[in-house]
């Protein structure tokens, strides 16, 4: 009744090809953006920022990155944790090495460094695929974590082996370090998320994305119709690494502030991000957001319900969480392999015909 495309006329190709072709979608998108930029910063407090909003924003970036690699290009990676660690440590080295440069560029540069490392570990993908590749990326995960643990240069020879984010400012407002206001960190992450989503969305709609999807659907056939598998796979690894690196840098500098690599960027982080894109939807930018939101909120909700309301011990709730997450993964793969994003699509499709479905 209210969600219609009728009467929304397009007069040129640009209008026809825009990301949100339906007017109400477009309006909704602008409203969400305005709300996120203009309203949330005034409402935010430390609890909301640290428990929900910051992890959601940062994991969304990581999920977009991994979704490009796994969902669009079909190269399964279990090394996300390791690549996030590269971003974090690169950011740390840049922050301490070049304190006069703005942290915005540090984060971008650490994305670049991660892209390079990711390409290095992605090179075997030219010979191997499927779960062989998944296991090969495990090499990246374990090797990188070991490297950051063992080579003191990476953590500036600090006695604890940890890295700590020094205070850095943007336009005079601190965004890292103990004096950070919640809204400043939030806005900083939000800018990166919006930029990442825009870039990713447009890349996947364009030639690069189509090549990735061709490789994903059948690499031999793609090669025959003229897609260069070397370029397509390597570019997917690079773009994915760039976003994952940015999220790692933000995760360290803005969210945690201090990082011990084995604990924070272990194999569990790789699985967490992978689960986000499975639940959210493989091959969908919206799905990355949905999956990240879901898996960030789930532990919070479980904790509120289990520990605070029912008074159960925390370890039982933690185990229950494993059961629920694992069960959901299997359930989604069986019932809806395209995840929450597909549910959203189906809902919209139904809504267009509602209330007269025939």
């Amino acid at each position, binding site marked *: 009744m209210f969600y219609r495309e009728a009467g929304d006329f397009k007069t040129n190709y640009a209008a026809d090809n825009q990301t949100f072709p339906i007017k109400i979608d477009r309006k909704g998108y602008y409203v969400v953006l305005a709300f996120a930029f203009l309203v949330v910063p005034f409402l935010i407090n430390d609890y909301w920022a640290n428990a929900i909003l910051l992890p959601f924003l940062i994991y969304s970036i990581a999920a977009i990155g991994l979704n490009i690699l796994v969902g669009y290009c079909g190269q399964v990676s279990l090394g996300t944790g390791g690549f996030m660690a590269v971003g974090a440590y690169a950011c740390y080295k840049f922050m301490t090495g070049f304190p006069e440069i703005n942290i915005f560029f540090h984060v971008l540069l650490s994305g670049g460094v991660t892209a390079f490392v990711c390409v290095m570990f992605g090179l075997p993908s030219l*010979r191997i695929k499927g779960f062989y590749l998944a296991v090969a990326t495990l*090499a990246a995960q374990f090797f990188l974590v070991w490297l950051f643990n*063992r080579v003191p240069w990476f953590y500036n020879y600090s006695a604890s082996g940890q890295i700590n984010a020094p205070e850095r400012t943007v336009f005079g407002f601190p965004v890292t370090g103990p004096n950070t206001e919640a809204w400043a960190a939030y806005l900083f992450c939000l800018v990166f998320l919006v930029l990442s989503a825009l870039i990713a969305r447009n890349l996947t709609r364009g030639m690069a994305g189509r090549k990735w999807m061709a490789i994903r659907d059948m690499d031999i056939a793609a090669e025959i119709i003229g897609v260069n598998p070397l370029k397509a796979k390597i570019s997917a690894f690079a773009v994915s690494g760039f976003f994952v690196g940015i999220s790692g840098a933000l995760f360290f500098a803005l969210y945690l502030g201090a990082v011990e690599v084995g604990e924070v960027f272990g194999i569990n982080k790789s*699985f967490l991000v992978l689960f986000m894109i499975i639940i959210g939807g493989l091959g969908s930018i919206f799905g990355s957001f949905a999956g990240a939101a879901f898996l960030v909120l789930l532990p919070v909700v479980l904790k509120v319900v289990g520990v605070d309301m029912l008074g159960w011990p925390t370890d039982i709730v933690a*185990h*229950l969480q494993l*059961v629920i997450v*694992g*069960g959901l993964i*299997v359930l989604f793969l069986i019932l809806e392999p395209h995840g929450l994003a597909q549910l959203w699509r189906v809902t919209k499709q139904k809504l267009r015909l509602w209330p007269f479905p025939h």
Partner: protein
Amino acid sequence: MLEQIVFASEVFANGLMAGVLYALVALGFVLIYKASGIFNFAQGVMALFAAMTLVGIQNGQIPFAHLINAIFGTHIHHFGWNVPSFAALILTVGVMILLAWAVQKFVFRHLVGQEPIILFMATIGLAYFLEGFADLMWNSEIKTLTFCLPGELCLPQGMNLAIDEAAYNAWGVGFFIDNLDISAAIVAIVLVVALVAFSQYTKQGRAMRAVADDHQAALSVGISLNFIWVLVWSLAGFVALVAGIMWGAKSGVQFSLSLIALKALPVLMLGGFTSIPGAIVGGLIIGVGEKMFEYCFGIGQCFGGIINLGGATENWFAYVLALVFLVFRPQGLFGEKIIERV
């Protein structure tokens, strides 16, 4: 000099023994992969689950005691009896068969015909589920595992010094091999022989191989795919149980047990996903390789210590070795050649 050689060969022997244990886990992978094309990431968690169930039954723990206590406010934890090891073993095998049936019935029956990578991700989900389930059922404390067959034949605990003493008396230099590792090697050999015999000489074993060869052809001669898959998952559960007992006796039944599954992956890539001998050889290569690498370059004992990486190289050596190896021979040492058709 003698001391160094003895020490190096001791590292070598210990590597072999560790390799046997990796191979035990890898065997379970190969079984399932051959019969159903599923790359079962949950194999390590199955080992953990099996070992926890065994200990839980032995000690007479009440399943889900913590959860029941939390919901109903009771204070139960034990039945108050101890089950003999052998009976507990039989019961655990029963539980693993039940698990195999449930996995087949509720998960993989609904995923028939999906891409292998989807199946792989489903097993990751299964691994998480099973891990949480095992912790809920038997709680997550570290448990010690003592396993005795009737007739006082006990599995030795880790850190047993008999050979060290014998070698010390013979050469005046200690030579340390865990008794447990030797028993593990013997058990592994018996297990492999039994598995090969099963798949070569029994009706079910042949049916299993037929399914592995070609699902549709097997169906058309009247083999029940469902039955074979449950059988294979049960066998893998049994192998997981054996591996769980060995690792559990070595280092206690705890969460880190499930991480050995990750170590079994490079073993498989070296040996090939479809070959039982490959799993054994791959396991031995990885076991020896990582121990020797750690000894030589990790802590810098070879070539006058010119390369010293600062230890803990065991964490990644196996994966990097497998990665390098894959680039040159993607199907592994003994695997079938990968042929792709459009």
